[in-house]
């Protein structure tokens, strides 16, 4: 009996240790980002490294907007994200609906095509895509970024939408048909409202993935007025000499660029492994 108790204690102690190790491993960088973002300029470069700012310098968050033209980056990221979301829904909803509820030629082949295209690395085809966009005059233009983000998120989003349309009972659609609904009306009037939660999650995923996209945003834009926030952040490091990087402002910018995403992600966390994304993420 006593031995059992000791065992249980030891187990609990071990568990606590692992939990603490986990928290340190996962959040140390996050804490580093926030603390550095609040350091006054002179403490950033002090050695040995100060773990905490002597007093929080909130003005960094204002200065980053004034000095680094982060606002333009934000605007560009939002434009590209909204363009991507609208296009992806216009193309993805009908496709996902058909894949879930309708019969058409080559249904299996198209399903596997979507599944496999999800695995496809954009970098493999970036040379011809760059040439294509160049021929269409879309380099340094947000339209090319929208097209690329749509292409490389479409499969993922369609699979996600398909599984939320799978939850719409066939009986409901059949009774609508008897009442004289066409197939397209059945999609708009009945399936969309039922699948609306899944669509909301899909929108958030499309938003976060577009917001985070680096390869095309970095390669296809040249002028500073067109660059997304992600590229702008990276370029502060790239364009400054190693010794002169204003780390406190970079971290303030990084915190600002992360916050909306973290909130969105945590709000949909149960869908990351849940039903809606079955077949999409995993």
């Amino acid at each position, binding site marked *: 009996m006593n031995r059992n108790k000791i065992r249980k204690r030891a187990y609990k102690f071990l*568990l606590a240790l*692992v*939990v603490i190790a*986990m*928290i340190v491993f996962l*959040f140390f*960088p*996050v804490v580093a*980002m926030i603390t*550095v973002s609040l350091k006054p300029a002179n403490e*950033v470069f002090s050695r*040995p*490294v100060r*773990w905490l700012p002597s007093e929080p310098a909130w003005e960094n968050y204002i200065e980053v907007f004034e000095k680094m033209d982060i606002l333009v980056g934000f605007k560009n990221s939002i434009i590209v994200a909204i363009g991507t979301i609208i296009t992806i829904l216009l*193309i*993805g909803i*009908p*496709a996902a*609906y*058909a894949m879930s509820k*309708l*019969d*058409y*030629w080559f249904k299996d082949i198209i399903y596997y095509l979507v*599944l496999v*295209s999800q*695995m496809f*690395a954009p*970098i*493999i*085809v*970036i*040379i011809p*895509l760059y040439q*294509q966009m160049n021929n269409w005059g879309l380099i340094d233009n947000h339209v090319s970024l929208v097209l*690329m983000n749509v292409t490389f998120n*479409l499969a993922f989003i369609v699979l996600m939408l398909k599984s939320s349309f799978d939850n719409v009972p066939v009986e409901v659609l059949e009774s609508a048909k008897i009442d004289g609904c066409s*197939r397209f009306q059945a999609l708009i009037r009945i399936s969309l409202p039922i699948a609306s939660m899944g669509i909301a999650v899909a929108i958030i995923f499309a938003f*976060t993935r577009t917001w985070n996209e*680096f*390869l095309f945003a970095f*390669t296809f834009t040249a002028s500073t007025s067109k660059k997304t926030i992600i590229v702008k*952040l990276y370029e502060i*490091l790239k364009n400054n000499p190693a010794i002169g990087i204003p*780390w406190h402002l970079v971290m303030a910018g*990084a915190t600002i*660029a*992360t916050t909306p*995403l*973290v909130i*969105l*992600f*945590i709000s949909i*966390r149960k869908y*990351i*492994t*849940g039903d809606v994304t079955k*077949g999409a*993420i*995993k």
Partner: protein
Amino acid sequence: MKRDNIIKTTNLLYVLPMLIFFGVFILSPIIQVFENSFLQIKANGDVEFIQFDNYIKFFNSKDASMVLKNTFIWVFVGVAAKILIGLLMALVLYNNFVGKRVLTGVMLIPYAMPAAVSCVVWRLMYHPTFGHITQLLLDLNILERPMSFLGNPATSLLAVLIVNVWAVAPFCALNILASLYSIPTYIYEAASIDGAGHLRKFFHITIHLIFTDVRTLALLIGIWAFNSFDVIYMMTTGGPANSSSILVNLVYQNAFEFNNRGYASAISIICFIILSIFSVLYVRSKNKEVSFE
């Protein structure tokens, strides 16, 4: 019968826009890359058909052995680390303790952070003079003097790999946790009655039952890792001297920095072949997934 065929044809219109996107921006470019891989494309636009020379040049180059080795380490060591750490975290979260719900919520932060942000943060932490990690290792007397983890060919790949593991492990943890919860508790109860201890239950039941799910997950994050150009590029641009480059970095470098498009296309095709193999494995593994209901 005939009407069915008409419906099947008109229904194709629903998926047509999607297929057009795939055709124009994936299928047609990949065919073009395939053609380019047999060409030498000069800076002035002249093109010469050189058969397999680009491929031969790649496999004979001194970059190839290093980059292939790096890719192997990046993908396989990375996946193993992500899955093991993810499994450990999932097993911890399977227990009940104070703050568990909060922890499962916020642990996605590393995964939710934009890659550019995490790279910026880790680059500061690795900084030889102002970095937290350097300072910590100095304080603990593990390091005698500051070193540049990202600027040293011996440590650069490992340093970037740690960032990638940090970002993806929580995603693995939540997925494995979902698999753990899908195992009905009566299986464990039955095993307890049969006298099985914790360790036996873990090795004989848990590992067994989550194996298919974890295999699918491993293939998926392996494919992601293989494709993850951005993390490496933003941390080290593949350097120093390609010591942290994987295949996709080599593609980008040759395409946009050396303007060597035929050669870059040949490497792209090699990537494509490797990816196709893993995609087939992934789809097959996914189709074998089981549920216990």
